[in-house]
């Protein structure tokens, strides 16, 4: 009876460990999982999976890649951080504050685009950013919208003390903007293009004014990537083939844009409008040049200062140097002993050189 009970206990504990203890084990492997969520700069991943481009490149490198779409952006990052996925789409800021701050060493494999108007600040009954003073501002707290607001306020000599932030879920933004008690809002596309058309909405600031600071990435677990460079090569191959297709002025390109538009709840024209507000790096050489430029260090310095100020870097962080960020030239921002976020141009460079 006693041994029985002990065995049951051990079995239950083991079950618990199995359930909780799964992490992406880094070693050579052949099956990979990629998570992505709906956003103009990431729609190509869904299309690549549908159009067979993913399988084509996976077969070429003798691996298999499972591409999963998440309806909830944050959930996809959390799943990646918990170890359920090998790669995920996210922004430079969320990459630093979620996986890297959670101790998961993360490498940006592909720098896909930066927001060039996709994120915007709206107000009612006013025509300049300064009119936002003293208002309640609805936005997704701690997201790139929050960062955009902070940069916008900086640009007119105000700080977050001058407004009051109300956390609001992103699916409800468009509806919320039409209620009387909402007078200021920060959000991203596709909501931006809908709010723009509403009467009384005045766009007073957008991400084109902080060019290149909100960057959309495909990141992968650094350990998985260094043990399986094929995975990185396949990702780059998939991405740039899809880029070539979707930016081409051919019937196939138009069909791809229409499919991506439909998948993101709009149509070809709507999707092309969102693409116009996005600086896509269709040419790998351009992406390499952007990533390797010295501006990236400046951007990441702004981002980590913002995250530290909001207490998001790590709970015990005493300065913005708590997490190390490695840039393509090997420079490290922050703690060299705790590098958790890396920009790597290797795979984009291979694409540029046609070496995939």
């Amino acid at each position: 009876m006693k041994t029985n009970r002990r065995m049951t206990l051990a079995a239950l504990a083991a079950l618990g460990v199995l359930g909780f203890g799964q992490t992406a084990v880094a070693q050579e492997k052949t099956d990979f999982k990629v998570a992505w969520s709906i956003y103009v700069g990431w729609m190509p991943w869904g299309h690549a999976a549908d159009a067979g481009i993913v399988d084509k490149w996976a077969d070429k490198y003798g691996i298999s890649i499972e591409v999963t779409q998440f309806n909830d952006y944050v959930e996809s990052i959390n799943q990646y951080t918990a170890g359920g996925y090998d790669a995920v789409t996210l922004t430079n800021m969320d990459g630093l504050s979620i996986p890297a701050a959670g101790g998961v060493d993360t490498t940006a494999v592909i720098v896909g685009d930066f927001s060039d108007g996709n994120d915007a600040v709206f107000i009612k009954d006013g025509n300049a950013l300064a009119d936002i003073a003293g208002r309640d501002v609805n936005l997704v707290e701690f997201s790139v919208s929050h960062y955009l607001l902070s940069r916008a306020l900086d640009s007119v000599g105000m700080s977050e003390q001058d407004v009051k932030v109300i956390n609001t879920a992103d699916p409800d933004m468009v509806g919320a903007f039409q209620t009387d008690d909402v007078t200021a809002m920060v959000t991203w596309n596709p909501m931006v293009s809908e709010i723009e058309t509403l009467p009384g909405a005045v766009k007073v600031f957008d991400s084109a004014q902080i060019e290149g600071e909100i960057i959309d990435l495909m990141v992968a677990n650094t350990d998985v990537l260094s043990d399986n460079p094929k995975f990185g090569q396949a990702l780059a191959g998939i991405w740039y083939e899809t880029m070539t297709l979707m930016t081409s002025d051919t019937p196939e390109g138009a069909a791809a844009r229409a499919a991506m538009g439909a998948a993101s709840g709009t149509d070809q024209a709507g999707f092309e409008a969102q693409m116009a507000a996005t600086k896509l790096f269709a040419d790998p050489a351009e992406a390499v040049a952007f990533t390797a430029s010295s501006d990236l260090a400046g951007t990441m310095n702004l981002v980590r200062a913002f995250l530290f100020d909001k207490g998001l870097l790590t709970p015990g962080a005493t300065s913005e140097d708590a997490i190390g960020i490695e840039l393509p030239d090997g420079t490290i921002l922050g703690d060299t002993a705790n590098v958790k976020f890396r920009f790597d141009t290797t795979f984009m460079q291979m694409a540029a050189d046609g070496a995939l």
Partner: protein
Amino acid sequence: MRLINQQLSPVAATALKFAPFLVLILAYLLGSSLRLAENPNDKLLPALTSIADAVDLMAFTPDRRSGDYLLWTDTWSSLKRLAAGLGISTALALVIGVCIGILPFFRALLAPFVSFVSMVPPLALLPILFISMGLGETSKIALIVIGVAPIMIRDLAQTVLALPREQIVKAETLSASSWLIALRIVLPQALPRLLGSLRLQLGPAFLFLIAAEAISADSGLGYRIFLVRRYLSMDIIFPYVAWITFLAASADFGIDRFRRWLFPWSQLEAGR
């Protein structure tokens, strides 16, 4: 001996009572130490010390930006919404429930309508509420009322309808008016039941509160959980969940004690 007749010694019964909790804690500690051994910064299953640090940060350290003690301001905002929502629901249930139960006019008028409304899934109404009532407190309280009140009304009307007909007839032979019957026969038996159904609705009320706070708020227990979920701060989420559970359990216990104190006769009838 048949299993259904098994006699447990008091020691065994106590041990069994605590066993599931112990297993849960052990599984957590084991899983947590395994994950932390692999990645010391892991956030999914934080060590108990980091949970303690988070509690200290949320409950006993003023916030860097606002100077508030976040756990207490969150609790206060949430409890205000909850109290308003449940208070309105209870008042509605009392008035409408008793009317449906004793007055044929109101039964014909409202009973089918209330039954119909109670089938509307409240969370599905959330987007409509937010647009029609704004993002402020009104829509959050309205969600709780819409979710909770119809069920409480139906429950109370059922209780009143189930009162022995003899009691009513007896009162009538003693020449009591409708008003007096409501006051002296129905209310003393309906009120304890109302508190009982309030207890049962605490869980759903918390559910609606958290759902509403997740969508738009600047403080509240549900707001905080959905905010820190963004960066996987389980060290904050776990204590908040425990705190909400504790609040709900205390309210449940408190209302039951209140009922026993206020309506001692309801205890006799239940035979407890």
